């Protein structure tokens, strides 16, 4: 009996030690290929015979200003990889972006904390939302050989090998927005840039300033905080400056509050917003008449209802949604470069590993976006000044369009962005 007890104790001790050691390892399923990739099938695998690649997603799912967009972004990315899995996966692996989804609340510190929690468990980040937030983990990503797909369009990402950015950044988008308004809306005198006091707002404001200079417009810049109740200063600035063109880089609610508030007090002009300023539900608010009359969206690609193969596949994969939203579109498009990098890594010696994915991403000179963007929109093989994508689309309010906007100007690059000497980011990230 004593012997039996002894063995029970030894077995229990070994089990406890194994548990502790597993815990110390962070619960990761490392294999020869490294962290974030296993020979075991994914949870709820489409292909039971495939191994599993785990992608992380750190998003703004509850409290931050982009929560209304972050949900659709994340859902679209899940649908994207599900479609990839249904098509057989990549190199004998299915891709899972469900298990490691974290909410950063649009807070760089929490973003960093969430990355620390998943850094040993993911091969790459399928989403890292926010510029400052991504910056908070960038050094760790580099030391981990982890590539990431930013849910932001910052000019700084064009200078980072491990950040796989799609579409024109906020800076070029703003230049194109101003150039387009000068050409098509008769803007001649003054442009007022209202923006968040962060990297998103700063990047766009830098582009607006550059375009204002190039077009001989007076330029005024006003920073504004998040929150509808905090826009009194921005509205007062519009009424005081009386700009021909208002370029806004905030969240949708703030944009609508500013435009609705200024219009209600008699201001008329043209409003161009950075792509994240639009939410179709704004057409159900009191600001709708002002938006219909004055608002245009500068965007990196066509909205939900556009007629391309990629858009059609996205709509089919996502299925019926209560309210189509271009958060879905962005989430879907952003994943194409990561798909291309994974496919290229699968062909390399050693197959899909973090190191090979980093190498493959740096060698991509084009990406098949299935028509949502031109293939040449992604090119990581040269200096940003030579290869960075500078074209945007301009959308106008269209109540009949699924997401409330339709294209009034297809892909184009204005003279300011075209001639811009792009040797450093427009706005220094801090």
């Amino acid at each position, binding site marked *: 009996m004593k012997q039996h007890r002894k063995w029970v104790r030894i077995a229990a001790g070994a089990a406890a030690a194994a548990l502790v050691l597993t815990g110390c390892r962070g619960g990761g399923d490392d294999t020869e290929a490294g962290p974030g990739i296993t020979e075991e099938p994914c949870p709820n695998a489409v292909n039971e015979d495939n191994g599993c690649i785990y992608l992380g997603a750190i998003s703004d799912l*509850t*409290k*931050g*200003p982009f*929560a*209304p*967009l972050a*949900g*659709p972004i994340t859902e679209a990315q899940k649908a994207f990889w599900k479609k990839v899995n249904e098509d057989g996966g990549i190199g004998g692996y299915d891709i899972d972006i469900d298990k490691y989804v974290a909410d950063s609340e649009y807070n760089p510190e929490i973003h960093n904390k969430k990355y620390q929690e998943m850094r040993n468990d993911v091969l790459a980040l399928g989403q890292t939302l926010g510029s400052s937030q991504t910056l908070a983990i960038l050094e760790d990503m580099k030391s981990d050989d982890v590539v990431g797909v930013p849910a932001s369009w910052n000019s700084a990402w064009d200078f980072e090998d491990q950040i796989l950015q799609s579409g024109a950044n906020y800076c070029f988008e703003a230049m194109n927005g101003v150039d387009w308004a000068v050409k098509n809306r008769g803007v001649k005198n003054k442009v007022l840039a209202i923006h968040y*006091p962060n990297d998103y707002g700063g990047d766009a404001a830098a582009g607006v300033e550059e375009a204002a200079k190039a077009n001989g417009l007076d330029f005024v810049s*006003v*920073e*504004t*905080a*998040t*929150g*509808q*109740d*905090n*826009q*009194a*200063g921005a*509205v*007062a*600035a519009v009424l*005081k400056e009386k700009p021909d063109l208002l370029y806004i880089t905030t969240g*949708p*609610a*703030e*944009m*609508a*509050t500013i435009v*609705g*508030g200024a219009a*209600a*007090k*008699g201001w008329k002009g043209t409003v161009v917003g950075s792509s994240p300023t639009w*939410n*179709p*539900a*704004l057409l*159900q*608010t*009191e*600001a709708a*008449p002002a938006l219909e009359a004055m608002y245009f969206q500068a965007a990196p690609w066509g909205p939900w209802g556009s007629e391309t193969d990629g858009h059609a596949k996205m709509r089919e994969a996502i299925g019926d949604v*209560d*309210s189509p*939203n271009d*958060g879905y579109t962005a989430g879907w498009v952003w994943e194409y470069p990561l798909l291309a990098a994974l496919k290229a890594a699968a062909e390399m010696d050693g197959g899909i590993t973090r190191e090979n994915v980093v190498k493959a991403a740096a060698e991509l000179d084009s990406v098949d976006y299935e028509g949502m963007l031109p293939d040449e929109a992604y090119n990581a093989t040269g200096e940003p000044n030579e290869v960075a994508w500078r074209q945007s689309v301009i959308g106008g309010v269209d109540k009949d369009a699924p997401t409330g906007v339709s294209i009034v100007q297809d892909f184009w690059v204005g003279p300011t962005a075209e001639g811009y000497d792009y040797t450093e980011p427009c706005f220094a990230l801090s």
Partner: protein
Amino acid sequence: MTTFFQAVLDGFAQGSIYALLALGFVMIYKATLVISFAQPALMVCGGLFAHHASRVWDIPFWPSLAIAVLCGAVLGMVVERLALRPMVGKPVFTLAIITIGVDIALRVLANRYMGADPRGVTYPNGGRRYEFLGLSISHQRLGLIAVTIVTVIALALFFRYAKTGLAMRATALSQETALAQGIRVGTMFALAWAIAGGLAAIAGTFVAATGAGIEQNTWIIALKALPAIIIGGLDSIPGAVVGGILVGLIESLTAVFQPDVAPWLGNNFALVAPYALMFLILLVKPYGLFGTKEVERV
């Protein structure tokens, strides 16, 4: 000068929202000595009740507002009965923490209802503007001010003349004495929460009828009522109204004039201004403008 008076008018309208919310805080504080941090969620829920009535059931604005007030009041009573009543007698700090939990729980439910989209309320002719002596105000803002004035007068009359109102005042003064007089103190607590829920619903409805409607971050607006109640005095109903209006005014005037008059204060000083005002007033009147000075026997 027109700019100044326009800023005053805008501030008065915005301050009306804060005043309604501040009244809710004060109602609960007077009855239970607890600062209810559930007011933001009650405001959001009230706005969503109005949204549902207005946009889903297609009911006109004013009946929608009435439905929202009713539902807000019921919600307030339910919160009191389920979350607060069982904790009577516990330290007020514990109760305040419970209201934070209630706020989070209600907002999770509200966010689930809202999803990604802001939710508005249709206000008839809300965009129509009235011009007077160079000043301009929208139909919707005028409605807000009118409703606030009517609500404040109705509350004042209720507490002065209605038997239940007098019972609530008695309960606020001394729960033991009120109990000895046959007043059902628990019912008074529930009523205080019901009134606070109704007031928050009015505020939420007008927030939903403005600009971008109610979205997941709109609850933050209700936090502006905190400096309002400190400025006015935690236990003063007139103080809540004056505090709310003052916060609206200081915010509006700072937003318009500070960038020119005191640019060295930096961008968005209007966000800080209510707290700066609160600090100044507390230096002079530690219990707020109308708060009851606390006397303790030693």
